């Protein structure tokens, strides 16, 4: 459904995308991860046709986005990072507009509005103005406006930001159901736990404008998700001779790869602590997970903190 090949995009002196390759198949959910500034939103914008790539090729359902931008746009539904609704119009009119743009006509349009409103728990709010919705309700409307269109490819950029736990689960279930009906979904998120809840078939980690690794959660954890010993100090430690692959999660928190036995690794570290000038407050073993994969992949980058 989506094929991205060698896409480059720069803004003045900043290289936002540096040769991105990515595929999303029909019925597949691909989670796109990356630290702030990795290029996730730029990639989404380029695929959605909001900006042109400097170089590279994007095909949507086999359609070259450069050669046929109009046809390509009809394949995509974009839910951008920032909430965008018409605040002085009703929920129904917000939904109606995006349905009309997708070519829906009555009575199909009205049927879909009712259906999507029910799915997003907006059924009782159809007559309410957008400005009178709570933050979470507005966010649900924001996403519902795109889901209504049933586009072959959904680009969802942090759609659960600001949504409460219950609505988040509902939203993730709905996205899963859309993929089940054949939509391809590219899902950008900062919440790693959502990826499992979503049932994403693949995860791609974007770093400094490139997809550095992609695969199923199991594949990534198997390949890169080693155990870590996490050390929390009272302040930033100095002069520690730490093994390669150590990641500073926070200023005073280090994650040291525990190759082989985690117990041996912890014992070795304990012997070096008296030279650090900092007091150890906590030590714990971190089991292999998507988070440990993410941290090991992003180690050493300027934005390599938690996603």
């Amino acid at each position, binding site marked *: 459904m989506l094929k991205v090949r060698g896409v480059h995009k720069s803004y003045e002196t900043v290289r936002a995308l540096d040769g991105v390759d990515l595929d999303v198949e029909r019925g597949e959910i691909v989670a796109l991860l990356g630290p702030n500034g990795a290029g996730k939103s730029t990639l989404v*914008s380029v695929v*959605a*046709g*909001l*900006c042109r790539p400097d170089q590279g090729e994007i095909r949507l359902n086999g359609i070259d986005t450069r050669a046929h*931008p*109009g046809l390509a*746009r*009809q394949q*995509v539904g*974009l839910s*951008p990072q*920032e*909430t*965008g*609704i*018409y*605040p*002085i*119009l009703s929920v129904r*009119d917000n939904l109606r*507009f*995006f349905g*009309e*743009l*997708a*070519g829906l006509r009555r009575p199909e349009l009205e049927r879909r509005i009712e259906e999507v409103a029910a799915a997003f728990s907006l059924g009782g709010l159809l007559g309410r103005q957008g400005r009178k919705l709570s933050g979470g309700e507005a966010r649900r409307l924001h996403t519902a*406006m795109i889901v209504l269109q049933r586009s072959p490819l959904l680009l969802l950029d942090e759609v659960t930001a600001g949504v409460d736990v219950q609505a988040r689960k509902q939203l993730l279930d709905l996205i899963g159901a859309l993929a089940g009906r054949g939509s391809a979904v590219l899902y950008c998120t900062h919440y790693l736990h959502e990826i499992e809840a979503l049932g994403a078939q693949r995860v791609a980690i974007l770093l400094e404008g490139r997809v550095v690794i992609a695969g199923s959660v199991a594949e990534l954890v198997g390949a890169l998700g080693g155990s870590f010993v996490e050390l929390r100090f009272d302040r930033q430690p100095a002069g520690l001779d730490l093994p390669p692959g150590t990641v500073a999660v926070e200023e005073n928190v280090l994650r040291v790869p525990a190759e082989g036995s985690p117990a041996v690794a912890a014992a070795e570290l304990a012997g070096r602590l008296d030279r650090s000038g900092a007091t150890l407050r906590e030590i714990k073993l971190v089991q292999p997970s998507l988070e440990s994969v993410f941290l090991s992949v992003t180690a050493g980058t300027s934005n390599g903190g938690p996603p």
Partner: protein
Amino acid sequence: MSLGRVAAIARQDLRILRTDLMAIVPLIVLPLVVMPFLRPAFRAAFHFGGLHRATGAEQVVPGMAVTFGFFLVMNTSSSFFREHMWRTWDRLRASAAGPAEIMLGKLVTPLVEFAIQFVVLFGLAGALMDLHVRGSWLGLGAVGCAFAVFLVTTGVAVTAICRTYMQATATVTAGALVMAGFAGALVPFALLPPWAQAVSPLVPSYWAMQGYKHAIFGGKPVLLPVLALLGFALLSGLLAAARFRFDDHKLGPT
């Protein structure tokens, strides 16, 4: 090009207008409020100039239509700025609607607003204030159409040039007052100082006033004013085409 999508965008802007009718207050209500105050002065001016059958409406109705018509430039521009402010602009651009469809759809509502203003001012107010169109209603309509095209293309050009809503508001307000002054919309053209009369033909609203007056008084064709207005519209359109960027980021009212 899908007329369905153009119509969808136009309908959406009409829904917004219906929800917030304040947008057409400056276009329609303000001229109606001002006209009764100015008409006696204009009637006196016409009588002083030898036009004893004139009611003053021949000046005040087209004058206020031209002066307050400039708010249409702001309304056109606002329809773009508010999409940025509401963060719906990128959503619209990422929809199935292409740039030409978005642009055409966005111009429909300002043209509808102009049509309402034209009918109310020349029809209703004209009737209440004894406006007698001795020339041609068709000619009056032709001038109105040409002026409307100029105003909406100028609205797009203003949007293209200005980065913030405040810049657009300031530009349009200043432009409206200056143009109304040079056009002879605020005071009869014959009473303008000679230097202003010399500059006036360079100002689009002058041609709108001339066209309306030719149609009202009769005896002179409206073709030249219509062509002049379409020429200015073409210039605005070219400026808009050269400067309008769909991927620009605009700042709405703060």
